[in-house]
């Protein structure tokens, strides 16, 4: 009988981790629906980017207030989770505060003391975050794409953190054994008096309850990630690693087009020649992107990484002047559509069955796509190296090359380039006239 808590703990732990692992598998499968791209180059630079941007939060602090608060929550979250290790060992083996018996007293006290201080700092930061979203109502959290679930999602995450931090402190405060160490209870010693009238047994019950709810809460939170924008706490690392390394102004070269153009320009090429045996693909490759499968897997990883902070949108010149385009919405739409495609695959035994929908039109409108100035403000603003501009350009390419659906003025501009090598209808022979004017 005495092992029942251990067994229950083990079951909850493995169920929690197992369900999460299963969702991670789905996540990876969904990301791999994207086209392959070669990102194996320049590994040292990639590691460096990950270290600076994700681990070092270098772009977060570009906005000092949000950046500073975020660093507190981030550091707090990572460090306090060391405590989870102790909880898991205690839970599995029925020990109590195993750390105290294996670590030197002073070190254990120092660790728990730091966790307690961080817990309070995280609480303060989270409350400020909540206030920014719900009381001050910062503009970037109030945009149209932030209505409904995205708004609740943002708040739920904050509530989770408040509850987890409170449970951690209550757990310590009601742990009479821990309070008797009188080392490391830097914060909880001030909470303990609140429970002073209670019997030893009642205190123990509260301590056990806080302990259990704390660890179950962490497992629930872990599993919540997959359904939430909060995935960034994991995906920021691969995302910054695979982020763009070339100058921001350098847009992808379409190699299929290169082959065609080279063939056209080669005077020796025979346009009527039969393709060599086995070289001809059944279908000519589609240009650009109309759905998530046409995007690269890095684009799709970007979409799952986006935590909807809206720094991109708050710097976008189109959005700032009231146009429909919002780079954040581009990322949210991409993820929503990808999730839909993933569920479709799950429901149809592993194959995607055409659902008559696509990213272009059903999620992202042409009005949004054509409002982009390609200025890279969104790319620059993103604290985790997401590139919404690349998705916009891929979709423009589809519109123009597959559908000839550019705005009329742009068609005129392109016809001019074709005819006279300039976006305006001026004769190429007049190119040097300025010299004598």
């Amino acid at each position: 009988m005495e092992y029942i808590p251990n067994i229950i703990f083990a079951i909850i732990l493995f169920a929690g981790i197992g369900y999460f692992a299963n969702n991670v598998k789905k996540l990876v499968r969904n990301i791999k629906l994207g086209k392959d791209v070669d990102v194996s180059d320049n590994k040292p630079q990639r590691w460096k980017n990950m270290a600076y941007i994700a681990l070092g939060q270098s772009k977060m602090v570009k906005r000092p207030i949000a950046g500073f608060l975020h660093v507190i929550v981030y550091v707090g979250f990572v460090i306090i989770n060391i405590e989870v290790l102790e909880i898991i060992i205690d839970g599995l083996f029925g020990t109590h505060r195993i750390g105290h018996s294996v670590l030197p007293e002073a070190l254990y006290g120092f660790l728990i003391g730091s966790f307690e201080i961080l817990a309070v700092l995280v609480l303060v930061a989270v409350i400020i975050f909540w206030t920014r979203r719900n009381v001050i109502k910062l503009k970037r959290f109030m945009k149209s794409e932030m209505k409904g679930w995205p708004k609740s999602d943002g708040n739920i995450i904050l509530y989770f953190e408040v509850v987890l931090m409170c449970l951690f402190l209550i757990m310590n405060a009601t742990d009479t054994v821990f309070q008797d160490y009188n080392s490391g209870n830097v914060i909880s010693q001030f909470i303990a008096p609140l429970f002073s009238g209670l019997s030893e047994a009642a205190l123990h019950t509260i301590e056990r309850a806080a302990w259990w709810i704390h660890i179950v809460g962490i497992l629930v939170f872990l599993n919540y990630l997959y359904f939430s924008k909060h995935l960034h706490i994991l995906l920021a690392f691969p995302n910054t690693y695979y982020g763009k390394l070339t100058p921001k102004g350098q847009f992808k070269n379409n190699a299929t087009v290169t082959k065609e153009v080279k063939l056209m320009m080669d005077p020796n090429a025979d346009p009527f020649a039969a393709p060599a045996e086995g070289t001809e693909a059944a279908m000519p490759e589609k240009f650009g992107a109309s759905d998530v499968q046409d995007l690269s897997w890095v684009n799709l990883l970007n979409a799952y990484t986006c935590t909807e902070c809206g720094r991109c949108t708050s710097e976008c010149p189109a959005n700032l002047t009231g146009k429909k385009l919002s780079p954040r919405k581009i990322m949210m739409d991409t993820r929503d559509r990808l999730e839909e495609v993933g569920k479709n695959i799950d429901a149809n035994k592993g194959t995607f069955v055409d659902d008559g929908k696509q990213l272009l039109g059903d999620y992202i409108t042409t009005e949004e796509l054509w409002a982009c100035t390609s200025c890279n403000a969104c790319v620059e603003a993103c604290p985790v190296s997401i590139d919404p501009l690349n998705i916009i350009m891929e979709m423009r390419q589809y519109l123009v090359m597959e559908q000839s659906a550019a705005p009329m003025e742009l068609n005129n501009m392109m016809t001019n380039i074709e005819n006279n090598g300039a976006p305006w209808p001026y004769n190429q022979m007049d190119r040097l006239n300025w010299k004598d004017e």
Partner: protein
Amino acid sequence: MSEQLIVPTMAEMMSQGKTPDILFWVGSAGSYDDRAKKITKAFVKILNKAKVNFAVLGTEESSTGDIAKRAGNEFLFQMQAMMNIELLNSYNVKRIVTCDPHSFNCLKNEYPELGGNYEVLHHTQFIKQLIDNKVIQIENSNFNGKRITFHDPCYLGRANSEYLAPRDVLSILNANLIEMKRNKSTALCCGAGGAQMFKEPEKGDKDINELRTEDALETNPDIIATGCPYCMTMMSDGVKVKEKENEIKVMDIAELIANAQNL
């Protein structure tokens, strides 16, 4: 003045058996747009003054295809690029300078993959070299004490991380340089990029160039400095919308340098 401009073409140079040190890529705006042509001429004045051995492609030049690519027409872009690369390589071009950040970005970053490898400079970078080498010196600048604010072109700044060269060049004017609140990596676009120059904007509550002009006006400038022919159009229009065209001039950095000494 204008008849004094010396503008050799690559074809002329080749026929004389000469090789220029650098090719001046004029670009479509610089060739045809009335306002941008003045920038082109100002830059040529600087090149002439500095006795730079340069040439232009003249009537052989054609659009880089940059705008077509941003508008989604990868095919047209690559056609233009490969034609240009064939021409540039046939002249054995090694270095290129241009007043257009869009051409600069395209030639520098997007041509190599298609076979065009050149050292490409934006004119502000080139002028900075001339200043550093003391080939161009400004004494008693005409812009002494003037309030100048610089608008970063997206394709020079964010796209290629060049924020210093234009500022370094402006610093020799002995003027009062004031930054807008959004500058360098957070500079606001003028609204022309991504082929917007050639179409009406989507529905919104303001035009982007108007918002950017407001940024500039906050610095209470005498002159808004630019480094891009499209930014020039947008900022000039913005100043007109705000009815400030009599008080505030929009000038390219090449024009400021050329005019600082009445070249």
